[in-house]
């Protein structure tokens, strides 16, 4: 009896250690976010008075307002608002196009196999490992030739091209687990290439569509390198504008505005993750195990 008790006591202690570790790591990880939130809610005077981690004495949203609509980016004092809109205009078509093309690619590579399909897939995968920096100059040249340099449509092209390898990988691996007999049955039923895709394959792929969208949204929204390389001035995405707000200052460095701006830039991806996160985990593991 005593032995049983000590056994369960030991188990409880182990549990406690595990939770303590998890809690510590979680706190450590959330620390920067905490600093960002409280700093963005303080007045500049309070920050310069030395309070950094503590709660604000007086909560003010001035910094958020400034970051959204008043902060100066270069010579224009418009805040992040127009750049936020730029990012949306860039992200939405990019995500839709790259996910759509990835879905069709995956469908062809698994259900309409042609000789050399695996080779083509291998080449596409190559794109996942290509460092962004390596393609900057050829990409710039291509955009120039297409007449899309320095514009949002140009940036969309870049992101779609770069996203296809990832989205194709997602969809291909998902569709591989769908039985081929499904396509055959639809063919016997008289459905054609697109009808099968639209009516039979796509409705079964909601989890992987969500995964692809989250992944692409996060990647493209957070991208800085392509944004700073291929756009300028008023067509910049929010990441570039954020950089400009933070790096270009006159007078005292406005930490509270910087923090608010950074959070405004991060909110959409956080939002997407919180809303659709559980699909993300489910979708990533789907196909791995047959269920």
């Amino acid at each position, binding site marked *: 009896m005593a032995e049983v008790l000590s056994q369960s006591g030991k188990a409880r202690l182990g549990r406690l250690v595990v939770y303590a570790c998890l809690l510590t790591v979680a706190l450590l990880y959330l620390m920067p976010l905490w600093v960002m939130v409280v700093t963005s809610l303080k007045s500049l005077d309070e920050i310069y008075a030395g309070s950094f981690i503590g709660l604000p004495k007086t909560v003010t949203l001035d910094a958020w307002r400034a970051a959204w609509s008043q902060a100066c980016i270069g010579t224009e004092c418009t805040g992040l608002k127009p750049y936020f809109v730029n990012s949306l205009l860039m992200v939405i078509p990019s995500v839709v196009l790259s996910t759509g093309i990835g879905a069709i690619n995956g469908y062809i590579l698994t259900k309409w196999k042609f000789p050399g399909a695996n080779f083509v897939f291998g080449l596409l995968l190559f794109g996942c490992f290509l460092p962004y920096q390596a393609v900057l100059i050829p990409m710039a040249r291509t955009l120039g030739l297409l007449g899309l340099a320095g514009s949002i449509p140009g940036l969309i092209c870049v992101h779609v091209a770069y996203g296809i390898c990832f989205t194709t990988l997602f969809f291909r691996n998902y569709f591989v687990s769908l039985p081929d007999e499904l396509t055959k049955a639809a063919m016997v*039923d008289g459905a054609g290439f697109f009808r099968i895709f639209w009516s039979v394959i796509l409705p079964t792929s909601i989890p992987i569509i969500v995964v692809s969208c989250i992944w692409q949204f996060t990647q493209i929204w957070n991208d800085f390198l392509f944004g700073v390389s291929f756009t300028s001035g008023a067509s910049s995405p929010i990441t570039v504008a954020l950089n400009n707000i933070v790096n270009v200052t006159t007078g005292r460095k406005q930490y509270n505005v910087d923090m608010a701006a950074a959070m405004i830039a991060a909110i959409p991806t956080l939002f997407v993750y919180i809303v659709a996160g559980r699909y993300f985990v489910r979708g990533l593991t789907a196909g791995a195990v047959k269920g």
Partner: protein
Amino acid sequence: MSTLEIDRVRKAYGSLEVLKEVSISIGTGDFLVLLGPSGCGKSTLLNMIAGLETISGGDIRIAGRVVNHLSPKDRDIAMVFQSYALYPTMTVRQNIEFGMKIRGLSQAERDKSVKTAAELLQITHLLDRKPSQLSGGQRQRVAMGRAIVRQPKLFLFDEPLSNLDAKLRVDMRTEIKRLHQRLGTTIVYVTHDQIEAMTLATRVAVMKDGVVQHLDEPQSVYDRPANVYVARFVGSPAMNIVPGVLEVQGENVTAKVDIAGKPPGRISGIPLSAAAARKYAGKKVLVGIRPENFSVANGAGAMLAVNVDVVEPTGPDTLVVFHLGGVEVTARLPPKQADAGREAVLSIDTSKIVLFDADTETRID
């Protein structure tokens, strides 16, 4: 006019030939079973009939029309797949009417067809469910419903029962047979299960290595198998193939077989044509005896005394295993007629014996 004509059809993947000049033709209302082990080309042949695989050579005609280059939907066929291949996101009703929708039938026509098929298959109460909410047998019915509403010239079944448990398999087998009798449809059915072939078919094509070994009515395939392979594949337990030597005296044909620890046994009165008897007199042959052609000695036919090795009661009858001609032989006897380790005297119904050439393993007539 035959409904399906497979005329010297070939299939090759590069240099690998999986079907070698297969020719089969069946008439309206026939139930053709393609029977063979995995890898014999039977599913490939079915997919070629369906239009899901290309044809490397020869012609396939459905109702007199060459369909080699037609897409599946233009071939007037319907197919039931091994995994049923129901569309997972659609309800049973949507599954069944999908094909009709694509062909542009009106809602009223679709509803009528779905209703008829659902009643026939007793799945009316399942129409609004998703496939994931159905049992294996129910999915099977839905898959058949999807095929039936097409009213095709030809139904194709690809191992439709192999995903079901043993009990359900027998039930669904009866169901398919009943459906065939009621609708009078023409069916091509692929299976590796010889019992399914025997019970369902009006014609069986036993296949091996891309070649049709024997094409005939099931009873003929069972009684007079074309070669040793077919003899062993059809029937359970398999036909006994016993090496022996043929002795011919006038009209009387006798096979002499060795019996372990005893003088050789003589099986006399085997039916054989005079020409074959002349040709094989004194030569080695393979004697094919079905387990049920043995019986407890009754004074008729050929008699053999053997030492029983193993006795396996199955209920209605008992399988008795002994050695004959150096090979293991199984006899199906009434219960409690033999004991392991003891001698048993058996009669053989010689009229049912089939002889095979010892070298080519083909039947001698």
